[in-house]
Structure formats: structure tokens, C-alpha cells
């Protein structure tokens, strides 16, 4: 049986090669709905592209050291690049530095409209550390005594103290973190952000949550409006901020975001008055692949625009998550506007995910019926450039929407790949064992079936070594994950370092922008 399969695969590979069916272009499926890919019929092939430009630019490498090695030289994930393909790259990951300290604030007491500072208190809550160079955000807890113990790379950071209590001050500061730094930070009283929240009839909304955020996205403590609709927050060292009023699905009130608010010398009063809006009935029905009712499936409804809400200063956000009933139906009433409906299948659900779709709900609409895609089996042989069966090739496919679930397997000794996947567009990757030197294949699986034999190609090597460095000492990143990406962040290949921090991966060259590519982003 095995010999038969071997002969079959070799004959298939030969026939495919003669017919051109195994050529790169057959695998280079354009992502669905990409007009650029479809329009650019005159684009060069991969080989032509490589002939034109054999120096590949904008190749990025993301290294994820293992977190369970217990080393004091622990490094944090880092992206390097750009690199040209073919180089041997040395990747030095700065060791994380202990950064400790305490954060205190002043509690205020408001009594009969008079605000009185009381005492210095620990700012229990969280500390955000935004690494300025990379934009990476680290969040560490601040304990009941105001202490924190962080482990971050050296560099310049935006620190945001986010106490849990709204009566304490949210504060922002810049700090250069070096080796074993310690910070004693007293944020002070800050300045008030206060106002009143009113419903569509002008009545005060009690029990509504309000919070401020920095422009970089750090979210401060949450205040709750009193019975008269009043709230108060405090902030220090924040010239501008965003105020968010958390809506209530039960009252059909969306979240409202007030952007680029200036925090004046005396603080800032911000009143929010919800505008009148229509409520629209929304129902839809889910059917499973066999046409039966799909019960207990999670559906997310997300507004992209709400009538009467959005302008330059204010935007809105309205989201509901519902599960289908025994008839496969959801029913709700939502503020009028434009919506996106997304079905979120459980990770172990043996069915596909319907494509998200838009609904204009400015008036009552007919209830749409959505069909869940069935599963299908991908069955093909993987062959090396000589047409011989290639075992131990990892095939992984990922959904383009929903929970972005993945399915994977490895090719058997005869090169056979059998993988059950949903019958919907997927992004797939074929990763040969690095020691074989064949290129990783990354492609979109849309409507076209895979050929019977997928032939690997000789790749262009990219080798490197990753080490975590602290001062003059360094230690290899052993068995860390290495991702190779293009400038758009599309992952072209994934491999690991070995015990000595060495890695090797083979790639195909990039395609010029706009051409049909097996490595392009959707």
C-alpha cells in the first residue's frame, strides 16, 4: 500500500509538473475580495519577482523566549528588522530588569460641594508601563501597600498609575528604566474631571460608570454616578484625555467616548446628555450545515455607527452578545444604526464560522437566515522538489474571522496530509522541517481546491542566533519561538531556536505589492 502510494505520488508529481499544476501560481490563491490581486493580472511570478530583486527588504523577526526557563536573564518577546533574506542575523534581546517601587496618592473627601484632601494613601490598582521605542505595554499590579515589582526591558517608558479607587488620582509620568531601578512616586491630589450624565429626557442617570483614558489607551479608575447623575475623577500630568461613559445594554444606551478633552488648570467639567434614538427590532436565525436549527451559538452584534450619536468629538460603541435559542434564533432591540454581526463558534465546535456581515438597522428589517459552513477534508500529498514524498511537514490553517480557530496536522511518512477544516476561506501554512531546507508555504485557501500534490520548493535560508543579554553576559534563547513576518505583520514562517539559540528557516521571496501572492495579507 505504501509503495503504491509512493508510486502514485511520484507519478502525480511528474504529471503535475508537466501540466504546470504544481507551479507556484496554482498555490498562490488570492484572498477573497481582494480587488488588487484580481486586477493585477500582469504581475510577475514569484520567480520573476526574485530575478528582479534578489535582496529582500522589510523582513522582520519576532522572537518569543520561553517563559518557563526560570532564568534570571529572562528576555521578553522582541521584534527585529528589517533584514534581507540570506543573512545570518544576531538577535540580542535585552534582559528584563527588575523595576520596583511604591505609588501613593491623596484621597479627597467631597462634602457639601467642598473638596478636602485627607491623607496620603497607597494607590492600589495597576501600573501601566508603555515602552516608548516599541509601543509594547506592560501591566503590573500595585498592591495594598502601594508596592509594585515589574520586570521589563530597559528604556524610556510612559508610566500610568491606575488606582482602583476613583477617589485617588490617575497619574502619568515619563521614566527611564535602567538596571534594578526603584521609584517612589507620589501622584498628589491631581485635578478633577467631573460632570453629570443625563438620559434622553434630561433625567439624571444614576449608577452609570465613567472613566478617563490616556491618549495611549491606559484606562483609569471607574467612577459611578450618584442618584443625581454626578461623577468625579481625578487626574495628574495629563494634558488631554478621553472620557468614556459606559452604556447599559439593558437600557439600550451605548458607550460614549469624548475624545481629546483638555484638562485645564482647574480641572474639567464634562456633562453628557444622551440624544433621543429609535429602537429597532433585530432577529436572525442560524442554521447548521444540515439545515437544522443551530442552538446555543454565540452571536456578537456590534454597531459601526449609531444614528444621532457620532460626530468629531464624540463616538459611540454598542455591542451585544447573545446565544441562539432552541430554534436557532436571537431576538433583541437595538439603537438604530449600522451593525456588524459576527458568529463566534467555540474552539472545539466541529462546524465552520459564517462570514461576518453588515446590517443597516435604520428601520425594521427582515430576519436574515445564516448558514453555518460544514467541515471538509483537505487531502493532498506533500512532495519535495524532486517529487518524493515528504513527511513531518506541518499544515496549519486559521480562520480569517470569528474566534480565528486553528486546525493543524503533520504529513505522514508517505507525504499524505489529511486535515478536517471548515469549508470557508482560511489562511494556511505548510512548514517543512528546517533541516530539509525547503521553503515554508503560506497561502490563502479560498475557493480553489488544493492540487493533489503540493510540491515544496527550495527555499532561501535565513539563519540566526538569539541571545538574551545583560551587560557583558549573555545566554541563548533556547527553544524559543521565532516568527518571520513581512512589513504588514503577516507571519511568513514560524520555527524555533535550538538549545543553543540557533535557528534556521527557509523562505520564498516576497511578491511586489499588489500582485497575486502566496504571502500577501488579506
Amino acid at each position, binding site marked *: 500500500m505504501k509503495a503504491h502510494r509512493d508510486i502514485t505520488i511520484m507519478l502525480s508529481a511528474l504529471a503535475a509538473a508537466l501540466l504546470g499544476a504544481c507551479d507556484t501560481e496554482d498555490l498562490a490563491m488570492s484572498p477573497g475580495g481582494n480587488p488588487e490581486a484580481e486586477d493585477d493580472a500582469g504581475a510577475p511570478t514569484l520567480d520573476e519577482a526574485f530575478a528582479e530583486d534578489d535582496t529582500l527588504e522589510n523582513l522582520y523577526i519576532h522572537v*518569543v523566549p*520561553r*517563559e*518557563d526557563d*526560570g532564568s534570571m536573564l529572562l528576555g521578553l*518577546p522582541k521584534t527585529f528588522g528589517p533584514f534581507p533574506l540570506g543573512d545570518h542575523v544576531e538577535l540580542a534581546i535585552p534582559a528584563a530588569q527588575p523595576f520596583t517601587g511604591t505609588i501613593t496618592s491623596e484621597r479627597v473627601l467631597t462634602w457639601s460641594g467642598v473638596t478636602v484632601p485627607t491623607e496620603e494613601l497607597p494607590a492600589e490598582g495597576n501600573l501601566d508601563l508603555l515602552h516608548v521605542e516599541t509601543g509594547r505595554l*506592560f*501591566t*503590573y*499590579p500595585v498592591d495594598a501597600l502601594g508596592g509594585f*515589582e515589574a*520586570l521589563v526591558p530597559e528604556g524610556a517608558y510612559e508610566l500610568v498609575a491606575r488606582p482602583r479607587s476613583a477617589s485617588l488620582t490617575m497619574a502619568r509620568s515619563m521614566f527611564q528604566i535602567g538596571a534594578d531601578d526603584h521609584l517612589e512616586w507620589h501622584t498628589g491630589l491631581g485635578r478633577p474631571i467631573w460632570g453629570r450624565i443625563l438620559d434622553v429626557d434630561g433625567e439624571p442617570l444614576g449608577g452609570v460608570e465613567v472613566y478617563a483614558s490616556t491618549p495611549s489607551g491606559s484606562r483609569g479608575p471607574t467612577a459611578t454616578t450618584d442618584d443625581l447623575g454626578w461623577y468625579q475623577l481625578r487626574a495628574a500630568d495629563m494634558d488631554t484625555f478621553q472620557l468614556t461613559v459606559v452604556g447599559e445594554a439593558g437600557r439600550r444606551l451605548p458607550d460614549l467616548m469624548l475624545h481629546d478633552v483638555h484638562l485645564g488648570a482647574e480641572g474639567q467639567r464634562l456633562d453628557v446628555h444622551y440624544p433621543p434614538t429609535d429602537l429597532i427590532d433585530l432577529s436572525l436565525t442560524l442554521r447548521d450545515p444540515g439545515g437544522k436549527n443551530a442552538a446555543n451559538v454565540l452571536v456578537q452584534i456590534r454597531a459601526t455607527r449609531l444614528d444621532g450619536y457620532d460626530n468629531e468629538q464624540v463616538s459611540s460603541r454598542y455591542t451585544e452578545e447573545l446565544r441562539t435559542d432552541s430554534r436557532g434564533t436571537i431576538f433583541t432591540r437595538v439603537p438604530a444604526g449600522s451593525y456588524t454581526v459576527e458568529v463566534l463558534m*467555540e*474552539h*472545539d465546535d466541529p462546524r465552520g464560522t459564517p462570514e461576518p456581515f453588515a446590517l443597516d438597522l435604520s428601520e425594521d428589517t427582515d430576519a436574515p437566515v445564516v448558514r453555518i459552513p460544514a467541515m471538509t477534508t483537505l487531502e493532498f500529498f506533500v512532495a519535495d522538489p524532486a517529487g518524493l514524498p515528504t*513527511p*513531518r*511537514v*506541518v499544515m*496549519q490553517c486559521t480562520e480569517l474571522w470569528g*474566534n*480565528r480557530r*486553528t486546525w*493543524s*496536522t*503533520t*504529513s*505522514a*511518512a508517505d507525504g499524505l496530509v489529511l486535515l478536517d477544516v471548515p469549508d470557508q476561506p482560511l489562511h494556511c501554512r505548510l*512548514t*517543512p*522541517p*528546517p*533541516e530539509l531546507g525547503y521553503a515554508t508555504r503560506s497561502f490563502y485557501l479560498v475557493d480553489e481546491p488544493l492540487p493533489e500534490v503540493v510540491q515544496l520548493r527550495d527555499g532561501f535560508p535565513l539563519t540566526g542566533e538569539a541571545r538574551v543579554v545583560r551587560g557583558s553576559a549573555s545566554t541563548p534563547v533556547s*527553544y*524559543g*519561538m521565532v*516568527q518571520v513576518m513581512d512589513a504588514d505583520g503577516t*507571519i511568513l*514562517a*514560524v*520555527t*524555533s*531556536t*535550538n*538549545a543553543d539559540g*540557533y*535557528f*534556521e528557516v527557509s523562505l520564498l521571496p516576497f511578491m511586489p505589492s499588489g500582485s497575486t501572492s502566496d504571502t500577501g495579507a488579506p
Partner: protein
Amino acid sequence: MRSFAKWYGLCTLLPLSGCFYFLPVEVPVGNQPPQIAVPESNPATLTIRGDTVTLTVMARDPDPEDTIEFLWSDLDGVPHEQHDYAAQDGLMASSVTVTDVRALRSSQVRCVVLDNEGHTTMARWNLVAQ
């Protein structure tokens, strides 16, 4: 073994018609489960720093014809990214990054490494909050 050598030597010296002996019995080795190379300890202990955590399991199957799959059953319903790939040194690997550790239901995460013969091995991590 020494007694067998004595017997064989004596047999060849004596005018006997032939020397017979028994071949060692070959014990057939059945299909074996995958072997985990990383993490080295099982369960492994991992301290969570920040909101995300990445777990990596690397394994190989002693039977060269077997395929391997990785099942992260504790992550159903937990937002995560999974990458399965061929690692260095002939290892198969699966790395998951849990993008919000607060969504984890337990401080223990398990990954079942399954070969196509149905044999399994399990990697476990005990997550410790800092």
C-alpha cells in the same frame, strides 16, 4: 552469553554433525506515544508577568511514520493564538499565546500531544500569578 560461547567453541572442536543454537528472541516493539522534549519538567511552573502568557510544547514521536497533533483543551473559549510548526532538532512544536490571562478558568493549562495511532502524552503547566 559466556556459556553460549563455551558451548559453541566446544561444539566446533568436537566431531559432531552440527552445532545448533537458538537465536535471541526478537520482542516486537509496539507503537509508542510521542515524547515531550519541552518543557523539561512536567508539570512546569510558570510565573505570569503582565496580561499575556506564551506556552510552548515541543515533542517528537519515536515512530518515524507517525504524525503529531497538539490539543489545548483548557483554552476552549479563551482568546489565544496558536502556532504549530516544525522546530529545530527534528521536533514538532505548538506555541499558544493567551492574550488575556484573566480569561483562563484554571491555574493549570494542559496540552495533549496525540499521534495518529491514538497514543497521547500530556504537558502541564502550573501558572503562578506574580
